[in-house]
């Protein structure tokens, strides 16, 4: 052995240095590469099962891990390719052929096959208790043709079919995984072809998404890890953003002025399909008379409600369909605030001496309480005494769905790039009883017929006309008093960029960037 101890030591040291420096550079490179973005919101999702999700907090998270054959474009109106890169529609509009993009893999590494697509779409269509069964029932069959083509047949011409397939209930999941793990696990850890993988979900606390290495869009997503935390109190959420503890959050309207005034933060605004309105129970004996409902429309100072409730950020709405949605009727007659007219109509309807009404407000929802408080004062001028009842939210919504209410506050966001969903909810009596309003009679049947016709009409211009007429009827009949539509707001620190949310509310964060 010629090695002296000294030499050995030197060699050892050198070796150690190299190893440690390797390690060092390794960790430095890693630190540079790993970008982690944390976002906070007020409420956790309950399920990510595409067949079962029904609340905005579930739906908006859907396209992190999942994707369909096609998807909604950023403007919320158009359809763009996703898993299928091209498609053809038959002459009679009853058969759709989708060609699968080549070589797309699920986040677990398995290749996407036509069988997976057939399984996923029929799973939702046939799922007991799924809120989407009704909408998907128009799909007669899903079959495969060759190794890369899927044939979807519908029972009647369906102009909304592409929108339907772009919606999350038609997300494509691997059949083998789904059958192996069962429904509960699908709800907790869905696997799909989306840009992210849900790696952990601590209920009521946080969801962690990691980059999907198999994502078909080269170079995306740009962040390695995305964390969605739950912070129920909105003050806490904003303070966390201001202190740099989180990178981004949705902003409640009440906090918007404050966040906008903070020079360290950026607020992005996105048009939305959400419209806030007051539902009037048309099946109630007091509100059955259309004159009473019209009187309440005239007695409502919507301008004041908009100023106070949306802090001036909302736009007055005159239809339950938002201007950011397709087929919004731009020529609706203007709604005026006219207390005298309201009194007149009430007198005609036999309520010259006043009318007592009750509004159910979810306890703990301060903005609803504020809305009710203002409405009470406004309607009092027309001789309507509005009693405010604060009840537990779940009780309130079950009363509403049972038709056991008089006045109720609600809003809807469209889940698809088509008008058919909201129109059917509001005008078709059999499915949801005209969105719980119990609206009925000749005019309602007329609106229902229009909506059904538009649901089968392939000519876009004709459809717009039909939906336009329907909106006029709804405004005349007042099953709801439309109030305002407010954009979605996301606040983030300055080093975050490319935040995207479409008018349906879906977050699109695959291009999100964070600079240090």
């Amino acid at each position, binding site marked *: 052995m010629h090695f002296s101890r000294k030499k050995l030591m030197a060699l050892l040291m050198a070796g150690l240095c190299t190893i440690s420096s390797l390690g060092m550079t390794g960790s430095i490179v890693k630190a540079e590469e790993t970008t982690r973005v944390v976002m906070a919101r007020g409420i956790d999702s309950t399920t990510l099962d595409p067949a079962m999700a029904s609340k905005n907090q579930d739906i908006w998270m859907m396209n992190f891990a999942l994707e369909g054959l096609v998807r909604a474009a950023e403007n919320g109106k158009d359809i763009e390719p996703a898993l299928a890169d091209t498609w053809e529609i038959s002459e009679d509009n009853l058969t759709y052929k989708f060609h699968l993009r080549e070589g797309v893999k699920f986040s677990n590494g398995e290749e996407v096959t036509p069988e997976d697509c057939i399984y996923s779409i029929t799973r939702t269509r046939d799922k007991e208790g799924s809120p989407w069964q009704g909408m998907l029932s128009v799909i007669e069959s899903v079959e495969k043709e060759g190794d890369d083509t899927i044939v979807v047949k519908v029972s009647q011409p369906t102009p909304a079919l592409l929108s339907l397939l772009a919606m999350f209930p038609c997300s494509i999941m691997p059949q083998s995984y789904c059958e192996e793990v069962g429904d509960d696990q699908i709800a907790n850890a869905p696997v799909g072809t989306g840009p992210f993988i849900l790696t952990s979900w601590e209920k009521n606390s946080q969801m962690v998404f990691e980059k999907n290495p198999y994502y078909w869009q080269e170079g995306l997503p740009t962040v390695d890890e995305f964390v969605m935390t739950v912070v129920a109190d909105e*003050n806490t959420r904003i303070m966390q953003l201001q202190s740099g503890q989180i990178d981004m959050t949705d902003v409640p309207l009440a906090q918007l002025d404050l966040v906008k005034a903070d020079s360290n933060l950026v607020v992005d605004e996105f048009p939305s399909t959400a419209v806030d309105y007051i539902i009037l129970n048309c099946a109630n004996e007091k509100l059955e008379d259309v004159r009473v409902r019209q009187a309440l429309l005239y007695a409502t100072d919507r301008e004041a409600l908009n100023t*106070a409730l949306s802090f001036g950020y909302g736009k007055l709405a005159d239809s339950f369909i938002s201007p950011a949605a397709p087929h919004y009727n731009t020529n609706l007659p203007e709604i005026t605030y006219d207390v005298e007219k309201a009194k007149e109509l009430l007198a005609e309807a036999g309520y010259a001496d006043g009318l007592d009404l009750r509004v159910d407000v979810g*306890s*703990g929802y*301060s903005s609803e*309480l*504020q809305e*009710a408080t203002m409405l009470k*004062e406004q309607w009092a001028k027309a001789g309507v005494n509005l009693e405010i009842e604060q009840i537990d939210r779940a*009780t309130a919504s079950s009363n509403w769905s049972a038709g056991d209410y008089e006045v109720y506050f609600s809003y809807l966001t469209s889940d698809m790039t088509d008008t058919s969903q909201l129109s059917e909810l509001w005008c078709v009596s059999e499915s949801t009883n005209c969105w719980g309003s119990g609206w009925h009679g000749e005019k309602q049947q007329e609106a229902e017929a229009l909506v059904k016709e538009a649901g089968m009409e392939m000519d876009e211009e004709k459809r717009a006309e039909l939906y336009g007429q329907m909106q006029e009827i709804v405004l005349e009949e007042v099953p709801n008093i439309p109030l305002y539509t407010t954009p979605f707001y996301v606040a983030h620190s300055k080093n975050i960029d490319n935040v995207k949310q479409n008018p349906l509310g879906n977050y699109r964060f695959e291009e999100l960037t964070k600079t240090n």
Partner: protein
Amino acid sequence: MKKKKISISFLAGGVVLLIILGMAVVPQAFTSQSPISQDMSALLQAPSSAHWFGTDELGRDIFARVVYGTRIDLAIGVFAMLVSAITGTLLGLVAAYYGKTVDACLMRVLDVMTAFPFIILVIAIVAIMGSGIRNMFIAIWLVGWKDYAKLVRSEVLSEKNIEYVAAAKTLGYSNLRIMLRHILPNVIDGAFVYAISDIMMCMLVGASLSFLGLGVSAPTPEWGAIISGGRTFITRAWWISVFPGIVLAVTGVAISLVGKGTADMMKGR
């Protein structure tokens, strides 16, 4: 020397309490503004000479709301305390006096009662019956009586064998008379002291319920509801929640001072 000190804090507490009682009885004497009228041109205004405590998100005057809210808050504190105190004291008295099965029953009921977390019980009650003052009373009552029952029971147990009770028994007095006329006056002091601090606790519970959205129905002015209503705006309109908070604290201190003074005087007797 000592006597004088007691009377000073007692006096201070008393004066403050009188003012607060005044606000509860004749609120219109303290402010000319209405607690519920909205003013859309004066939203979220900072305290000024026109609005001493500022205005809220509907342009309502906070000072007026605080003044008019006094009656409700005092009522919540005092009545919620009274019903629980009376129920609890009587049950504790009866259980301890008769002992054996009766006592064992009470203890089991207490076991079951304590096994339910307070806030959960309240949330459940409110969910069943709806929110509002009445149901808040019921919730506080259902949960509050057990402390009095425990307190009185243990006091009675230590009194029961004392000579005067035995004497009363040999004189042939009825159980009811012995309990109410002989034992009760001797065990009531502890419950009284507890009751004073309980008023404040009841008021705080009311405020916390409003915070969770389970309290008084709008637009009734109530301190807890005002505080929780201002929570949304706390970073830019601090006055909405700070002033009612201070008034609540001052009331609590005043009640405690008066209570302590009274208790000391009772001891001195």
